[in-house]
């Protein structure tokens, strides 16, 4: 029996092909818009995740309290015996197969100065000490095949502790435009005479840095700056950094203050001759899906050993990531609601017209012995067919357009980034979501047919037969 209902439903769709086509077009437009936006948000989400994981890793182990209070004084939150902790993490049978990169990192703050220039300048900096080879491996993480590859940190190597890089803004501020041959670096407005401009801080740094003169003289050609920070003991300390290159940062505040250096140099600056510690142990996992399991295992390990350590994921470290996800998710919800309403009204309208035109046919069928439920089913099947046709066409168009965009080589700079990356619409990147959109639209079309279908089923046979 269902076969004949399907046959009648399908043939009525073909019979009213123009009307069916218009309605299916509304469904197709809904599917197209939602799937393309899904592809875009998927790309944004996965791209942001990739960028964050490449730079920060999935998880970071801190000394307890660092996440909430440590930013003011990172050095006070150093992890004691971090090499031993890393060994325990790396050798753990649960964690070992999950970990791709396990590396220490030292955050620090201080004053960066270029007293060698005629226009001596200084500025507070935010820096991180890393192991260059580990960082290079981290930058190669691309689980989702986004094609996002951040440039490696040029000029940095494990063997050369004295080299690092700075944000483009900081290089400009420290008058490193010429030695680093920075583009987009207009000449600064005329400054006051050098002697007057050199404040006591610069003089102190110069004096302290002078003690490192032999090392500075050995540094390769390029820009040289001095970094001043207070050691854990409170004494001022200074090191010289050979600026091998610059790297633009997404936010100006960060770009004007960022220094990336070798872990050894950072430790030398912060800990001097005292025990060298780190502020974080970074874990980059092979797969983001391991994150909660790895975190749980780390917490268990730290509790068991009473190490006083805590674990944070990249989402906690970069609240912007969660904010972007929530923003795009709410926009997506809004688009889905609008599209759902359009589909709903289009299908209700079409199905109501179909019922009105076939009242006599409904009466005939009922007189012949067709139950009300089967009349209802027949119109629901029609709604489902319209939804299916529209969704299939919309999905095909979405995949086609996404393929064109992906092959066009369009690039853009996402928020928080400084380097353009290829635009990619990942329509099928989250297949469950894409399938939910398609199924959802078909369900909306079916649900929209319910009202007219119920009306058809409730018709009095006598009234329906009398209808002309």
């Amino acid at each position, binding site marked *: 029996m269902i076969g*004949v209902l399907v046959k009648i439903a399908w043939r009525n769709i073909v019979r009213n092909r123009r009307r069916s086509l218009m309605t299916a077009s509304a469904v197709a437009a809904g599917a197209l818009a939602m799937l393309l936006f899904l592809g875009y948000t998927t790309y944004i989400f996965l791209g942001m995740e990739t960028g964050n994981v490449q730079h920060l890793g999935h998880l970071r182990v801190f000394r307890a309290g660092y996440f909430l209070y440590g930013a003011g004084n990172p050095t006070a939150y150093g992890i004691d015996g971090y090499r031993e902790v890393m060994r325990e993490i790396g050798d753990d049978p649960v964690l070992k197969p999950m970990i791709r990169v396990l590396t220490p990192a030292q955050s620090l703050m201080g004053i960066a100065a270029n007293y060698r220039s005629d226009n001596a300048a200084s500025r507070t900096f935010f820096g991180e000490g890393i192991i260059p080879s580990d960082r290079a491996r981290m930058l190669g993480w691309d689980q989702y095949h986004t094609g996002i590859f951040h440039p490696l940190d040029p000029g940095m190597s494990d063997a050369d502790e004295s080299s690092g890089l700075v944000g483009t803004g900081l290089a400009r501020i420290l008058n490193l435009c010429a030695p680093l041959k920075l583009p987009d670096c207009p000449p600064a407005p005329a400054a006051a005479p050098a002697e007057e401009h050199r404040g006591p801080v610069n003089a102190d740094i110069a004096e302290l840095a002078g003690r490192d003169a032999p090392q500075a003289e050995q540094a390769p050609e390029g820009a040289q700056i001095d970094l001043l920070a207070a050691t854990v003991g409170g004494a001022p300390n200074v090191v010289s950094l050979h600026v091998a290159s610059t790297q633009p940062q997404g936010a100006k505040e960060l770009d004007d203050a960022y220094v990336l250096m070798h872990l050894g140099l950072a430790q030398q600056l912060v800990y001097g001759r005292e025990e060298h510690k780190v502020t974080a142990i970074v874990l980059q996992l092979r797969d983001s899906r391991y994150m909660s399991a790895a975190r749980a295992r780390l917490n268990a390990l730290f509790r068991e050993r009473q190490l006083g350590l805590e674990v944070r994921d990249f989402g906690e470290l970069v609240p912007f990531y969660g904010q972007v996800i929530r923003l795009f998710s709410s926009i997506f919800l809004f688009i889905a609601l609008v599209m759902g309403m359009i589909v709903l009204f289009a299908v209700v309208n079409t199905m109501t017209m179909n019922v009105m035109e076939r009242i006599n046919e409904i009466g005939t069928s009922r*007189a012949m012995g067709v139950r*009300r439920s089967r009349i209802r089913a027949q119109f629901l099947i029609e709604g489902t067919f319209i939804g299916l046709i529209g969704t299939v066409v919309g999905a095909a168009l979405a995949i086609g357009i996404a393929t064109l965009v992906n092959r066009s080589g369009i690039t853009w700079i996402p928020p928080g980034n400084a380097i353009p990356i290829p635009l990619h619409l990942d329509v099928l990147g989250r297949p469950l979501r894409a399938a939910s959109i398609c199924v959802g639209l078909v369900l909306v079309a079916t649900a929209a047919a319910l009202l007219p279908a119920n009306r058809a089923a409730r018709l009095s046979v006598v009234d329906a037969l009398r209808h002309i």
Partner: protein
Amino acid sequence: MTQPAATSPVVRLAHVSRTYQSGALEVRALDDLSLEIPPDRFSVVIGASGSGKTTLLNLIGCIDAPSKGVVEVCRQNIAELDDDAVADFRARNIGFIFQTFSLIPVLSAYENVEYPLLLVGMPAAERRRRTTAMLEAVGLAAQAQRQPNELSGGQKQRVAIARALVKQPQLVLADEPTANLDSATGAAIIALMRRVQADSHTTFIFATHDPQLMSHADEIFAIRDGALLEHRRSGA
């Protein structure tokens, strides 16, 4: 599709009234009407427009319910059945032929005739055999795959007759079946129905104004103002 005993009426109406509400006005279409229609007969209900012929046929066809009284069709009190059971009862026992043919426009002649057999869940092979035989019986074997809009009025009514009879119902109801046909085609359709009735021993009940049709009737029920005015038997 059991045949009732030859003597028991296929339709029995006892003190049936049917009233409609038309705005504030109550319209009495049938008024305390009682009648019995014997099986295996060619019965005609006649009466002026608005006399209650169609209402009577609707009640006999179980597509309407009386306001008062008892309607028994094929020895079944229809009031005892729920909506689905009434639909199933119609599917098994009653065939309809409409004035406007009322074929399903998206189904071919063959599919229209086959449709009632699908409703009673007949196996495919038997369905095919009966549908083909019925189309041959009404002379439309060659037009089986045509859509209704490719058929003439007479051909459409033949398909409607085949559709009504294919399930071998106990009762066939026809409301003005020749009204939309020219007289020659109408005569041919009447002859066809008479022949099919004689072959199948199905009870036919018509509502009509057509004198041609009346002349073929075994039983004539004259209705006026919702009441039975006269019951005549052919040759009586």
